[in-house]
């Protein structure tokens, strides 16, 4: 079973040179830490920045430079700043190559639920709803199951959904899955030490297993 960091590490190996990427909060945020140095990618922040850099040194914290999680950040060389309408024109218009989001649930036909809900109240969704509706490739990074052990890979989403038929690939602590065009989670890789039986038991939606399923390789060190 993978740690959050290892999920992030596994996704990092999928990222290609030259991509413009949106990272959601949670596990996706960690991915930036595992990218090979030589990879030239640009991270977008929905509050108006292309080129998110690492957290700043304490003395460089600037209240006017934050990310969408309202954390102080730095900007990389070659950044650009813009307003919120432009930030979402960019997202909606399909200019972001890849979005990696957390999720509460994913359905076997690629629907995603990731509204922020607390004490029974929907509190919003940030930029996710626009991202999942855009033409950007969409990956999900999440735990395979809720804390109570129930599966997050479902036949149908039970929580309010954020977008339909939009997820392409799911990375969980148990494995990597693609969504089949006809519906279903196709298992691509197992996490080290995880059996197919365990994945079967923990996947509520239709699971498709074809041929031999390799154990994934994790190169980067943690």
């Amino acid at each position: 079973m993978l740690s959050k960091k290892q999920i992030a590490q596994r996704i990092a190996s999928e990222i290609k040179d030259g991509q413009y990427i949106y990272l959601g909060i949670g596990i996706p945020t960690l991915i930036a830490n595992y990218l090979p140095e030589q990879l030239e990618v640009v991270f977008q922040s929905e509050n108006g920045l292309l080129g998110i850099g690492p957290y700043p040194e304490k003395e460089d914290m600037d209240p006017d430079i934050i990310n969408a999680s309202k954390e102080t950040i730095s900007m990389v060389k070659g950044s650009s700043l813009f307003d919120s309408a432009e930030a979402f024109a960019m997202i909606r218009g399909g200019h972001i190559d890849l979005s990696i989001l957390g999720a509460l649930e994913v359905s076997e036909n690629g629907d995603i639920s990731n509204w922020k809900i607390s004490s029974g109240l929907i509190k919003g969704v940030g930029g996710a709803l626009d991202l999942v509706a855009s033409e950007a490739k969409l990956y999900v990074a999440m735990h395979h199951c809720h804390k109570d052990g129930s599966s997050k890979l479902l036949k149908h989403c039970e929580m309010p959904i954020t977008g339909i038929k939009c997820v392409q690939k799911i990375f969980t602590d148990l494995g990597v899955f693609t969504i089949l065009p006809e519906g279903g989670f196709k298992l691509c890789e197992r996490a080290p030490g995880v059996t197919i039986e365990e994945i079967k038991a923990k996947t509520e939606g239709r699971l498709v297993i074809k041929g031999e399923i390799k154990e994934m390789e994790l190169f980067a060190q943690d």
Partner: protein
Amino acid sequence: MINKTVKDGIEAVSDIENGAVILIGGFGLCGIPEASINALLTTNLKGLTCISNNAGVDDFGVGLLIKQHMLRKLISSYVGENLEFERQYKVGTLELELIPQGTLAERIRAGGAGIPAFYTPAGIGTHVADGKEVREFDERLFLLERWIKADFALIKAWKGDTAGNLIYKGTARNFNPLMATAGKITIAEVEELVPVGELDPNQIHTPGIYVQRIFQGDNYEKRIENQTVRK
């Protein structure tokens, strides 16, 4: 050029009336019109509708207006960090309209740009689409969304001149430029107010035509919601 300077926030907001619809700039606590919000707090206004990306926190930003029970309705994309909002919402004294962030931004931009309605893919198949027209273009489905306009827009910029031209700084730009275009009366507060002619016309983010009143605020707190530093 036309001089739009007013003395301070108090003068700027003095003709806002009960029940007014007000756009308030900022993202979280970043780029919020602190001085105009503080000026509102000195009034006895009631029943305001506030359109702002966030609800602020309990003791800063839009949260202060909520705490003082000045709002009847809040239109936002995310209200995660405000407990007092939740309390008033649950007892039914404060209404909430949640709009996806990109749609909120585009609806405000449309309001300023004279576009009464547009189609967007965001929200198709979700509860956001409830009661809205769905239409197919180029084999994809889209939702019809309407413009947003307001009686007042309270915005914050970094530098401004007396003609209302504005320059923002960093990610404090966010919703401010779009909101500037969609207020019948737009009130801009700036950290530094300069004479006309000092700003480079090529670097202006908000042309002065959108701004009806401008003043220099002081003692900006610029509170940081989440201080994060390199390890």
